[in-house]
């Protein structure tokens, strides 16, 4: 593992050398900070309706001199404030679902790869079966049946997303299992459980971290699709997907209702992807310096 304890400054200095890494971490930091302190810096109340000023275009100034940088929606709510408020759901869904999926997938893959044999074959067939249904379709079907809502959605995304981790981790375990240091650990008389958790797990977990970064982006996109289709988070919770679903109704007259939430999603996912690219190169010493 390239990361040593007590070396955050060293990590930062390596990060600073990569433009992609810097861009990614900046975007992700801004979104996370907005999710936490959004209500404090938000120019207007994201839920405040103002029917008189509905459908006002970007740059609109109302009678009392309030400025609406990105315009208003069909109920006169400020789009910029709503985008800030929406970051909260994206961060929450992205982080929590990925933690659930990652934990489940790593345990499953670790066990499957470590035990091997018929157990491994059966466990991997199950993963193959689940992977054959495209992720978003599976999630759409389950949320259609179970019903929508923020916490349900997080659980659904978490409990369907683990298969990718299971497959990747299992592959890594198969590689690591045959390494000399693992054989040496056995030779020193360590138990199977100790070998699995102390010697194999730490050497495969970096793949899970890289994958998790990618999956945060995938999950944020999935949440926005589901909320857009009316199968995800419900109003009055503000999410970018729901804003797009509102915008779609007025697509011929109020383009700003559709344009800006989508830009917010794109920038956020781009930041996550960049950070993930950098993490992959950073955690994989074979790749580092080559890119």
């Amino acid at each position, binding site marked *: 593992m390239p990361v040593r304890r007590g070396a955050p400054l060293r990590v930062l200095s390596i990060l600073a050398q990569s433009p992609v890494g810097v861009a990614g971490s900046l975007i992700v930091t801004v979104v996370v900070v907005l999710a936490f302190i959004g209500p404090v810096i938000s120019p207007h109340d994201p839920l405040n309706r103002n029917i008189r000023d509905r459908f006002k275009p970007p740059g609109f100034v109302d009678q009392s001199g309030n400025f609406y940088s990105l315009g208003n929606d069909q109920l006169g709510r400020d789009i910029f404030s709503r985008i800030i408020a929406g970051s909260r759901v994206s961060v929450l869904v992205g982080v929590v679902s990925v933690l659930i999926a990652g934990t489940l997938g790593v345990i499953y893959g670790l066990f499957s790869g470590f035990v091997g044999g018929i157990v491994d074959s059966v466990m991997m067939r199950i993963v193959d079966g689940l992977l054959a249904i495209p992720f978003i379709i599976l999630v759409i079907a389950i949320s*259609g049946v*179970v019903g929508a809502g923020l916490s349900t959605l997080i659980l659904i995304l978490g409990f369907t997303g683990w298969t990718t981790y299971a497959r990747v981790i299992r592959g890594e375990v198969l590689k690591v299992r045959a390494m000399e240091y693992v054989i040496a650990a056995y030779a020193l008389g360590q138990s199977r459980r100790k070998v699995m958790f102390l010697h194999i797990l730490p050497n495969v977990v970096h793949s899970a971290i890289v994958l998790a970064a990618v999956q945060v982006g995938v999950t944020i996109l999935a949440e*926005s699709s589901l909320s857009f289709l009316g199968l995800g988070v419900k109003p009055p919770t503000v999410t970018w997907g729901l804003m797009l679903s509102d915008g779609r109704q007025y697509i011929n007259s109020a383009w700003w209702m*559709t344009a800006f939430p989508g830009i917010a999603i794109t920038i956020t*996912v781009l930041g996550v992807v960049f950070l993930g690219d950098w993490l992959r190169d950073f955690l994989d010493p074979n790749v580092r310096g080559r890119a």
Partner: protein
Amino acid sequence: MAPLPSLWGKGPGDGGRGMGVNLRGFFISRIAQLVVTMFIISVVVFFILRLSGDPILVVAPDFFSQEQIDQMRKFWGFDRPLGEQYLTFVRKAITGDFGKSYLAKRPAMELIIERLGYSWLLAAASAAIGLTVAVPLGILSALKRNSLFDLIITSMSSLGTAMPSFWLGLMLIIIFSAHLRILPAYGALQPESIILPSVTLGVGMAARLSRMTRSAMLEVLNQDYVRTAHSKGLMQKTVVMRHALRNALIPIVTVFGLQLGWLLGGSVVVESVFSWPGLGRLMIDSISVRDNTVVQAGLLFFALSFILINYAIDVIYIMLDPRIKFQ
């Protein structure tokens, strides 16, 4: 590079490299895998749709009496034990009978077949757009590595991957339908109707494929045989087309197969943005009215087509790699 799902088994992807592949054995093992995978999928799909509890209460109108609900439950077979319901479902599904749609009162299979053509058309058009854009751009990007052109192409590709496809679709509607008024935004009544949805999905496909094409080409361009080809005085064009691309095609085809999953998934949302009458929109419509038999059949269809397309890609793979020969 993501490991190949073992739907591929010990196929040409990993263990079979450099060895002969027995044609009959190849197909028999694939069919066996298909049966096992579809069995697992059928269990998953069957139980997912019962997560909601009683499927009858979902579709029965409010004014129904308990007696009428019981009658309905008996009619649809929901009064039987769960295991028995599953076996009945599988027995019928094998013969192509997925049950009747609660809503349309017609076989679910019929509804799916009606929509299948539209879905295939859209998927084929999007894949074609994706490939024709991504492969040349990916190759050029690799050849001009670290140039401004490379930077632009890789940035566009990251952008295309990060963008929600349905949002791109909405933006295209705003530009080409609402403002320029040159392309239809909804339905499939005119031949031009396919342009916006297929461009929407094609852009996402191109973004994902060009990235892989670039890295596959970069890998191949570093190989000894490419250097040899250069040093024996071949033209750049010949080296790229005859020596490098032929070998880079193998990982490109693999990634194309994996991205088809994205295409199928994306099509569900994009079809509903453009009211394109395909399988995806049928699914969304059926989910919103809880027409579970159709959802069930649709899920099985998506899984089956994903697996079959990937098997077809396995065959293409073998044709592309002369080291793997049928015996």
